[in-house]
């Protein structure tokens, strides 16, 4: 028996984002930018998806800002502290508010920024969200005891991560590749610094005063709301907040002058891993270097690339092969990662990767391959924009870099300009052995 069941979907289930279209742009939504007198920047992206709003507070401080010895992991630790409440709205009341709202909420910390988000249904709740978020940023209250209680949670988070070999490899790689810059450590920080966090009450206040100030924070709001109404709320609740005027100086990383190598013996049995890193440029929407290297990474290490097909699909020496070059405010690492089937192939895979990098110096990438990569980049990016949270979450990383959403369109315009010749030139400029760090990880040998 065939039965048709029409189902009237309730409004909240309906996805529908209807931007005022600027169709030639990769980031096609209209947005407005306003800045309060205290330096707080607001980016609003009204969308026609019924009833859902994503409210992001982007603090331009991450593990990059942990420039003092012994303070690694502090940006992440402070993210935890930010959930402790205020005298007006103590932690419990703040949590109850979010609970009643049924909000999807959390925070995360990256190398360059810390982000807090509240995703909720109902534009009628917008004022309360603005009011409550403003209160916790401006009036955050915690004491020394709260710091001591929260610190072991970070220890727990560290423990939860230690069973991951890729995390251990990443820790080792960064620690080896960087000498001075704070990118040397991961966002979780060194264990010795995590263990000392209970004693860092005073530093936490210094950290707060430096970085949790309106001139270091951007509000990004996307979804179903009226811009003027949003701004009225923001002005009402954030205007009394004072600037910090603090300028961070990050240590300059000296040029690497000789090849480096490091190894990690993972306690349990695990697939061998290899990471080869080169110091590369910082994010830029203007200089071709980063954009060309992004495309190089994809032409040569994505699933359709000849090297991937050889090592993963045909010879099956590798279980995974990839390249990553995440955008950073300061010069960061372009990393080639491989997970192998067998430890005995580590040298072979390393040689093959270096051979491929040499080849890139001598042979231009075929035009059609480059066109495929550019197409993939755009479709992949566009795929992220299907929900309000997709829009806000994707944009948050870019906004941190330049404070301007337009940077996405500028970046993709720059990608369009990259030629095979540019890629070849960048290969020659960056892929020198003296600029390389090789980290390996094998498991199961420690009793």
């Amino acid at each position, binding site marked *: 028996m*065939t*039965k048709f*069941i*029409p*189902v*009237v*979907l*309730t409004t909240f*289930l*309906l*996805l*529908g*984002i*209807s931007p005022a279209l600027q*169709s*030639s742009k*990769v980031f*096609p939504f209209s947005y407005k930018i306003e800045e309060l007198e205290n330096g707080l920047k607001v980016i609003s992206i009204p969308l026609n998806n019924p*009833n*859902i709003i994503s409210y992001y507070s982007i603090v331009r401080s991450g593990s990059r800002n942990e420039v003092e010895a012994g303070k690694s992991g502090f940006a992440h630790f402070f993210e935890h502290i930010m959930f402790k409440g205020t005298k007006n709205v103590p*932690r419990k009341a703040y949590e109850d508010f*979010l*609970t*009643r*709202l*049924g*909000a999807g909420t959390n925070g995360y910390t990256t190398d360059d920024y810390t982000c807090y988000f509240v*995703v*909720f*249904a109902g534009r009628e709740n917008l004022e309360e969200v603005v009011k409550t978020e403003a209160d916790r940023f401006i009036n955050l209250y915690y004491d020394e*005891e709260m710091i001591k209680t929260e*610190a*072991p949670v970070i220890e*727990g988070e560290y*423990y*939860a991560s230690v*069973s*991951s*070999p890729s995390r251990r490899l990443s820790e080792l790689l960064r620690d080896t590749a960087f000498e001075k810059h704070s990118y040397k450590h991961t966002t979780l920080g060194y264990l010795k610094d995590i263990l000392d966090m209970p004693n860092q009450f005073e530093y936490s206040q210094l950290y707060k005063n430096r970085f949790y100030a309106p001139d270091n924070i951007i509000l990004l709001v996307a979804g179903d709301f009226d811009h003027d109404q949003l701004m009225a709320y923001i002005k009402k609740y954030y205007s009394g907040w004072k600037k910090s005027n603090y300028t961070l100086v990050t240590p300059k990383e000296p040029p690497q002058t000789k090849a480096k190598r490091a190894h990690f013996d993972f*306690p*349990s*049995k*695990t*697939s061998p891993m290899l990471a080869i890193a080169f110091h590369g440029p910082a994010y830029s929407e203007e200089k071709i270097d980063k954009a060309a290297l992004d495309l190089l990474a994809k032409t040569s290490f994505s*699933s*359709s690339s000849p090297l991937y097909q050889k090592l993963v699909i045909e010879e*099956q020496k590798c*279980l995974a092969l990839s390249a990553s070059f995440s955008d950073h405010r300061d010069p960061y690492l372009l990393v080639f990662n491989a997970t192998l*089937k067998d430890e005995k192939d580590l040298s072979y895979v390393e040689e093959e990767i270096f051979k491929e990098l040499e080849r890139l110096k001598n042979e231009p990438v075929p035009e059609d391959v480059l*066109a*495929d990569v550019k197409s993939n980049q*755009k*479709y992949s990016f*566009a*795929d992220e924009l*299907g929900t*309000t*949270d997709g829009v806000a979450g994707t944009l948050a990383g870019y906004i941190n870099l330049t404070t301007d959403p337009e940077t996405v369109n500028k970046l993709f315009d720059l990608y369009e300009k990259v030629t095979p010749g540019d890629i070849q030139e960048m290969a020659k400029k960056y892929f020198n052995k003296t600029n390389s760090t090789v980290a390996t990880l094998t*498991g199961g040998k*420690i009793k």
Partner: protein
Amino acid sequence: MRNNIHWHLGILVLIMTFVAFSCAKLNPKKLSTELLPVEGNPLVSFRILLNIGSANDPPGKEGLCQLTLSMLANGGSKSLTFKEIQKKFYPMAASVGLAVDKEMSVFTGTIHVDNLEKYYAIFKDMLLDPGFRQEDFNRIKTRQLNFVEKNLVSNMDEQFGKEILNLIMYEGHPYGHNEAGTVESLKSLTLDDIKAFCKEHFVQRNIFIGIAGGYPAEFPPKVVKDFSALPDGKTPKLRLPEQRRPSGLEIVIAEKKTPATAISIGFPVSISKADPDYLSLWIAVSHFGEHRQHLSLLFQKIREERGQNYGDYAYADHFIQGRDKFPAQNCCRQQQYFSIWIRPLANSNRHFVLRQALRELKKLVEEGIPKDRFEITRTYLLNYTKLYAQTLEERLGWQIDSHYYGYQDFLAEVQKRLLTITHEDVNRAIKKYLNFENLYIAMITDDAKSLKEALVANAPSPITYANPNMPKEVLEEDRVIQIFPLDVKTEKVRIAPATDFFQKPGIPKIE
């Protein structure tokens, strides 16, 4: 060409007319379909659901279902090698996803409507006309074996703990092995096994086709026609043995060198989303341990008050995290279980936290949920579930699950029915479905012997804090928790080296 791409991407975010109707065509004799047209939406999402899963693996061939379906999702078709497929998919940023659970498996894919024809032609051939090449088989089997043999045991203790709980809970049951299989079974599987499994189970009446988005009207009939070429047939619904209930505290400890202990606790429950009591129990368990939310009482007591670990949660039924922290869909089961997930914590505090979690469970069962917590949790669920189905894939997934559980629209039903549930309903559901005395407990830790001794002896397990000024009420409660009696019998505690797990089905033999 370049301009074209720009134009396509512009379209991608064009106005999406809101869908008014979904249309399910449930057909016991042929293919069933679920269509969610969203006119103007530039994306099209697929969910090709199969009513089979790892519980259909024949004994000795554990992992066969996943390996077979992976051959479809990650292998070549007859006309194209996997290498050629990857090359064609790449400019479209396309892929085929696969998730295998015990009784359901699902292929997923989302594509821009302008690439729909190109994508679907490949997708269809992958599923309907697979190449079954030996080199694809070798690659996919190695990857699956690697997951079972190395990653699961060594690299992902949180997942490992949940899998051990599954092993204890379903010993000798069709659910009782990991979807990826065991080392021994995987090594024995051949390409012929794959072909035979596919022939037997990849048949019309096992399949539910879900399509959502801005597809042209003529597209779904074409898909149905293509899939109708599959042989007719249906895998009979599994007749599962009754779930074995734990007798007292049944503990399995996987021992490995680790600074942190992972804990999972659970027991079977005779309830699912189809049951009228489900929402009442859901409120109770959401209050007790909502997944990765401050609302969770366990989170509050263990993490927020005491800083023991990163989080502590509980689930009224089988839960897999999907997008963000929301539940994944299409992993429905006939039989369900309640569980508690304690994230890794310092080994020195493992006994204390186990006691604390079980004491909280006892309080929940004996005292029920306070009235104010009932109110706030109900409000929370009313609002939070509004965020559950934001993408096309999620909406399709929930619609398909709705049919499985006998609803037209489960999430719409939640909105209506939550309002009618009373505090008494919730406390009645707690008494009816939950207990604190008969539990399965899985732990991954170092020095398992001393843990076992301490558990059996009911030795006090005081803990210390970095904070010398912990709140008085917390310390007072700690004094109660640290001697909270657990009735652990020595014969009910099994210890095995972590590396012995997943070699064969079931719990490894004790050393």
